[in-house]
């Protein structure tokens, strides 16, 4: 695709995205997303899952623009609570807590919010350009993929997710396997055999991703935090929002580095937005001439991670839109949402539905501007939500969980699944397990099994099909390499420690569960 074609397509996208109705949905999505990000415990994953039914009455493009708005709105909103209260609204803002809150204690909370908002805007906008340029060629490349390549890609995705997550590798892999096993429930698509149904016909289509995600992320958070006191809120004044010249200068390179790092990590399967903020913080501390300032209110410690996690948001859309393969739990829910609306993301999406793809890209540019306008002047308003005592807030969140889960299929089975997953997520988090791999495993399970069995069918049962095809071989070799590295814990631990990934999950879990 030439640059002229890209620009023509982008023009087509903007004609879709700038239509008044679409602007309204982008605005509503960003507003709800910011609220979702501000509220502790209701991260982007639970937020998108809960609000999925609200998009049922919309056409496909409007629904995706609305849900994407919620996604990147939540990424913006999460920074507000991190900076002002040391509570990460969502996991990707954990690193922002450290220096953001230290800046607030020094009276520079407003400047930290402004830097976070501007950094997020810049990163969001630049990474959308990356998405725009990378997704179409990747989609063309993916047309060469057959079942063996998809199997290798999905397997690699799960291995990378487990390897890159901050916790223990066996625990992460066990959680991914648990998710894959949950994905085995339902009718086997190749033989029509009904597996693990226990007499419940509602399980024919398998376990839905929405009740699992809401249970593991939304309900388990309520279970962990109910009964705890509300934290102190420091409210910034509007005139304190302007960063000093020095703060701007110190933030410029961290924003640029965070944008690039975030986008590249976003493409890689895994909890990209979380990992990218950890890596960006570690890189900034490593490059700083005064690393001792980190933890004491260094503006670079806010600018880098905030830019990285927003950039990773766009990066995560690249494999989802181009390959139809989600790179993490949030794109997995987005993928499920697209399928509800009759869209099949994958190599043919860009060719067959250009107005949807390019409209979505253009709406992300628009959404970034909407978020900048929303976040700075209205920060005081959003912070007021945190003054609502949690004993009043959590029954309201629970009602939205029940509503959102029931409304997807109109089935009480989903409420039972959410309840069981909530209890499971509560226990797993108590025992220091990550729950994100379960959601990804659940979504990938049918694709993984189907591509595995199709590969064997096309090779008359020969497993050599996975190594005779170069693309599959390279991906599997990379997967094996990751496993070998993980078997050498000493080397791996040093590498992970160097990037600041060590103990990341623990910090995330502890911060998000203890306001």
């Amino acid at each position, binding site marked *: 695709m030439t640059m002229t074609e890209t620009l023509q397509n982008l023009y087509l996208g903007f004609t879709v995205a700038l239509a008044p109705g679409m602007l309204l949905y982008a605005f509503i999505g960003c507003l709800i997303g910011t609220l979702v990000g501000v509220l502790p415990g209701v991260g982007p994953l639970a937020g998108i899952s809960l609000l999925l039914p609200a998009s049922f009455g919309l056409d496909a493009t409007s629904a995706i623009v609305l849900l994407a708005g919620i996604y990147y709105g939540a990424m913006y909103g999460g920074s507000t609570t991190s900076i002002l209260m040391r509570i990460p609204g969502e996991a990707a803002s954990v690193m922002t807590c450290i220096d953001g809150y230290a800046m607030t204690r020094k009276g520079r909370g407003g400047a930290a919010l402004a830097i976070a908002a501007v950094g997020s805007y810049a990163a969001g906008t630049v990474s959308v350009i990356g998405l725009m340029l990378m997704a179409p060629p990747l989609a063309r490349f993916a047309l060469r993929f057959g079942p063996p390549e998809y199997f290798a890609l999905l397997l690699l995705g799960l291995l990378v997710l487990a390897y890159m997550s901050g916790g223990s590798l066996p625990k992460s892999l*066990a959680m991914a396997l648990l998710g894959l096993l949950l994905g085995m429930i339902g009718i086997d698509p190749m033989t029509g055999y009904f597996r693990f149904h226990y007499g419940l016909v509602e399980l024919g289509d398998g376990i839905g991703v929405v009740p699992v995600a809401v249970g593991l992320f939304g309900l388990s958070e309520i279970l962990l935090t109910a009964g705890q006191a509300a934290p102190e809120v420091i409210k910034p004044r509007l005139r304190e929002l302007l960063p000093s010249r020095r703060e701007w200068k110190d933030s410029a390179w961290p924003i640029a580095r965070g944008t690039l790092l975030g986008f590249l990590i976003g493409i890689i399967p895994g909890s990209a937005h979380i990992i990218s903020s950890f890596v960006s913080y570690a890189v900034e501390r490593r490059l700083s001439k005064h690393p001792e300032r980190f933890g004491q209110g260094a503006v670079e410690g806010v600018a880098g991670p905030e830019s990285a996690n927003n950039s990773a948001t766009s990066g995560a859309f690249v494999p989802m839109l181009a390959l139809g393969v989600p790179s993490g739990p949030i794109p997995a829910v987005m993928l499920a949402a697209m399928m509800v609306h009759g869209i099949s993301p994958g190599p043919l999406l860009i060719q067959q539905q250009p107005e949807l793809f390019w409209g979505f890209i253009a709406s992300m540019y628009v959404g970034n501007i909407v978020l900048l306008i929303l976040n700075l002047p209205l920060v005081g308003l959003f912070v007021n939500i945190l003054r609502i005592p949690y004993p009043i807030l959590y029954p309201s969140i629970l009602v939205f969980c029940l*509503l959102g889960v029931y409304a997807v299929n109109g089935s009480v089975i989903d*409420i039972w699944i959410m309840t069981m997953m909530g209890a499971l997520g509560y226990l797993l988090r108590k025992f220091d*397990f990550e729950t994100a791999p379960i959601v990804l495993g659940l979504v990938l399970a049918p694709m993984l099994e189907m591509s595995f069995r199709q590969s064997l069918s096309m090779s008359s049962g020969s497993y050599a099909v996975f190594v005779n095809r170069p693309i599959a071989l390279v991906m599997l070799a990379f997967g094996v390499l990751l496993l070998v590295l993980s078997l050498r814990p000493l080397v791996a631990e040093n590498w992970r420690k160097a990037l600041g990934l060590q103990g990341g999950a623990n910090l995330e879990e502890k911060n998000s569960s203890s306001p």
Partner: protein
Amino acid sequence: MDRISGSLLALFALWVIWESRNLPFGTFRNPGPGYMPILLASALLLFSVVIALTGGKAERLTSIGWKEISHATAVLAACIFAALGMERFGYRLTVLLVAAVLLKAIERKSWFLTITLAVTLAFGTFYVFYTLLRVPLPFGPLGI
């Protein structure tokens, strides 16, 4: 605590393998519907054993705090009630009762706040989702 969690996961994996015994396994070259569940459960069993065996350095079970357990139990009970009541009593009545019990009985809020918030949540969300967004929600026997 890793020893306990690893052991529980191993038991779950063994249970899945046992439950898969009636599914056609197929052959190594031509897998049936039981092949993948057994393969995955076996891998889970392997990692669970690794977690349990390497769990000596993990924190002790007694280090886990359970101070929120009474609230957590109440919230789970509310979810179970919602699952049982949603299609028997209808959306509005179920949500009204769930919110009212959590606010009054668990959180000991005033009657005014409890009734105001519970009614707003039950009827407000119904109006927005059912009436405005046309999301189908169940009615109870009294038509509410």
